[in-house]
């Protein structure tokens, strides 16, 4: 269905794809795997001609979709052969109304009205959008929006659907909605799906096959075989490799079948304590914090106390008030009622320059904090803003991440490097309370692991770190304590292992296979100790 024949692609002199030959048969659910910056988006966008039509670059070789040559068509001509869905559905919406958005592609193709109505109705039923059919797009939840984007790509009846990180910005529940809708499409309509995703633990159980993109070349195979020697793999694969399970298994179900001997070996062991030893008076104390917007109460009476050295993960659905709470804690965001005390001071009563020495916040778009033309200038600016000795920020950055090109533009950095730069800028003011809003979006597994290590280091150095996230695997790596918000209220608060194991939605993969254990590293350490004895 999707066929690449010796495709090579390069921007200027920088090769992205080298001599790629792949063949994805009809009706297959295929997963594209690779580290950040490996060229996954380039490969996906070349299927409907967005690369090189929209990006420039040199391409050789031949791509065909459903027998049509991509080389001789524009992306618009291929709209009825390939549906393309991006990570941020809002950025691609043309109208403001669910039905019109769904019909847009059909209008472009010039389908008669009766056919269009029938198609739209089918899509609405297939993707479970009947309840929201008459609404405006602005009134939808993030999962519904992503399903509308998928529906809009499907209306023209394409034989292939290409999705670039469709669930990256979604909470676990919304991601499940989207993925099960995709699963149904593959089974009911026989659509060929090619999907790239960082959070493999969410999607791998749906995949029939996988492609690994590394250094511009592609390896194809079954999901287990491909992930076994991939630089990015979900924890279940690492656990399988550690325990020498055959396959290795990629789903929880398969892994559980092999897990009994490992459970027995671990029976006498306990995972290490995560709670920090440092006690004392709380650094952060809030009383009945509330945040109101024009029609909704985003945060509704949150009482929270946090110590230095604590690593807190703030979890909850999209729109549960996590961001609003973080901004209110930092003092720059709105706070309608309640009290916030950081070391006895109310941050919102301070001037912005003083406030950031008490609490630092890295927003969900780290690039918002950066406005210099080079990394070097950014660091110097941060030193000036924070009245810190010259070179402070550069030193912090060097501790956080190695070999960042000081002459590069901040927007040209990789996601992980950009996040590190924003973090370094924030840390230049040396705030005891550090808040991060959704830092893991766009990071691959190694990126997330190194972020967790850095944040643990900061907590050990006496900072209190609070991170809002949807990423259960990151929480397992990072958190000592988990707070779950729902509709602006705290519904659960306690040690990480107790809270995440109580809910299947928030449990990491390792916990589902080996109850009580959260990460592969913990299991490996216990096994190592066991072997030594």
């Amino acid at each position, binding site marked *: 269905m999707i066929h690449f024949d010796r495709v090579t692609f390069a921007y200027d002199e920088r090769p992205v794809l080298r001599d790629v030959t792949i063949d994805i048969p009809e009706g297959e659910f295929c997963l594209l795997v690779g580290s950040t910056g490996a060229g996954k988006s380039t490969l996906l966008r070349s299927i*409907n001609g*967005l690369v090189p*039509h*929209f990006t420039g670059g040199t391409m050789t070789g031949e791509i065909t979709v459903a027998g049509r040559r991509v080389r001789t068509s*524009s*992306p*618009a*001509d291929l*709209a*009825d052969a*390939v*549906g*393309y869905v*991006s990570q941020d559905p809002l*950025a*691609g*919406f*043309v*109208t*403001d109304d669910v*039905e*019109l958005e769904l*019909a*847009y*592609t*059909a*209008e*472009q*193709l*010039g389908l*008669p009205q009766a056919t*269009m*109505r029938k198609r*739209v109705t089918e899509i609405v039923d297939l993707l479970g959008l009947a309840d*929201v059919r*008459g*609404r405006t797009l602005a*009134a*939808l939840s993030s999962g519904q929006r992503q399903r509308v984007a998928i529906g809009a*790509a499907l209306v*023209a009846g394409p034989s292939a659907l290409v999705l670039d990180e469709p669930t990256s910005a979604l909470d676990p529940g919304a991601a499940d909605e989207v993925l099960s809708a995709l699963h149904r499409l593959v089974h009911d309509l026989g659509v060929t799906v090619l999907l790239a995703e960082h959070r493999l633990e969410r999607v791998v159980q749906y995949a029939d096959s996988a492609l690994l993109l590394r250094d511009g070349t592609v390896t194809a195979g079954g999901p287990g075989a491909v992930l076994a020697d991939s630089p990015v793999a979900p924890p279940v694969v690492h656990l399988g490799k550690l325990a020498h399970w055959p396959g290795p298994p990629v789903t929880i179900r398969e892994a559980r079948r092999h897990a009994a001997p490992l459970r027995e070996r671990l029976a006498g062991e306990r995972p290490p304590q995560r709670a920090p030893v440092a006690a004392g008076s709380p650094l952060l104390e809030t009383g009945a914090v509330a945040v109101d917007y024009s029609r*909704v109460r985003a945060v509704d009476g949150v009482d929270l106390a946090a110590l230095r050295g604590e690593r807190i993960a703030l979890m909850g659905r999209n729109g549960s008030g996590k961001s609003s709470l973080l*901004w209110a804690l930092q003092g*720059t*965001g709105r706070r309608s009622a309640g009290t916030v005390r950081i070391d006895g001071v109310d941050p919102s009563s301070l001037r*912005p320059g*003083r*406030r*950031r020495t008490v609490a*630092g*916040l890295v*927003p969900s778009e780290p*690039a*918002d*904090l950066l*406005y210099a033309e080079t990394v070097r200038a950014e660091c110097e600016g941060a030193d000036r*803003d*924070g009245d810190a000795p010259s070179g402070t920020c550069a030193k912090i950055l060097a501790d956080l991440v190695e070999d960042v090109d000081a002459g590069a533009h901040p*927007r040209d950095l990789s996601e992980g490097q950009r996040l590190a730069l924003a973090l370094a800028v*924030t840390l230049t003011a040396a705030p005891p309370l550090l808040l991060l809003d959704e830092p893991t979006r766009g990071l691959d597994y190694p990126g997330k692991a190194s972020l967790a290590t850095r944040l643990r280091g900061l907590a050990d150095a006496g900072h209190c770190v609070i991170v809002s996230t949807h990423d259960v695997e990151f929480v397992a790596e990072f958190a000592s304590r988990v707070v779950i918000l729902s509709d602006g209220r705290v519904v659960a608060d306690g040690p990480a292992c107790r809270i995440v194991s109580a809910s299947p939605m928030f449990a990491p993969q390792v916990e589902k296979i080996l109850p009580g254990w959260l990460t592969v590293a913990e299991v490996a350490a216990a096994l190592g100790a066991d072997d030594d004895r």
Partner: protein
Amino acid sequence: MNAPARARRPAHPVAWWGWALLLATAASRTANPWLLLLIIAVSGLVVSWCRGDEPWSGAYRVFLAIGASAIAIRMTFYIVFGGAEGTTVLFALPSIRLPDWAAGFRLGGAVSAEGALAASYDGLPLATLLVCVGAANALASPRRLLRSVPAALYEVSVAVVVALSVAPQLVSGVARIRKARALRGNTKRNPANLMRTVVVPVLHDALDRSLALAAAMASRGYGRAAGAAASTRRTTSALLLMGLLGLCAGAYALLGPATPAPVAWGLLALGAAAAVLGIAFASKRVPHTRYRTDAFGARDWAVLLSGSAAAMGSIVSAAAEPGSIWPATNPLTMPPLPLAAAFGVLIAAAPAILVPNTPTKAGPA
């Protein structure tokens, strides 16, 4: 659940524009203050009963302010430079003698009640016209209006729709960047700093977003098969251009007193015909279809008819009672109310009952 919502759909935007322009026609054919104030009152009533709660619904108030300032400017000009003079002097400003070649003007001097009244009679029709346009802006959804444009103008209408949705995104982008600025402790207000830390990131964002939107639209078939034969495209553009030129020439001739009326009307009609032909010609060749054609229903006709009642009323009054349509200002008298015209304007208030406001569809926030 869908059916009643659709039945209570607000009136067609073309009907609202027609209604407002007919009301404006009535306003432009009179200087009677009672009639003009009645027109403003009727438009205000209809707007407050029929408008939704979309972003453009606040337009009416803006146009009211513009109308008020039009009268104020006209009055200021009269007080400073003079105009119609009368015997009832209200107050006198210190005056400057102007040289002989500037006869007919004055600077300062006596301000008479008759002159002030004439100035306000001059300003009020313009203000009323503006208020009528404001009413149309507040009532007619620009998105729905764009959906009703002929297929030939499709590309233009898409550009406008995109611009409409980008504006609110820019506003939220500015808010986001400003909050991030506070996180850096940067609150300096000098222009160079604002340029670097607010304007540049916001524009960068907007550019990224428009590229993403362009890519999304292309992958969804926008601009597909735009390759109609070059000769056809040229014919269409030529017809459209000639049509527009004809319309301009016709309008100019109609307003200028020198051209005989039949020639002026002929030019206008020719221009309109060429434009319509061009659009129709191009529309046939556009391969797009519409998901929902916005039907022009009985209620929309009723809205249009109620507007034409106002225009008809002013025509009847102009024939039957011309003195009340253009009331004299010298000597000072209380202007009479032209009955036929007033009755027509009152009928134009009917949409307030015919198509009252329905809450816009919305989900849980």
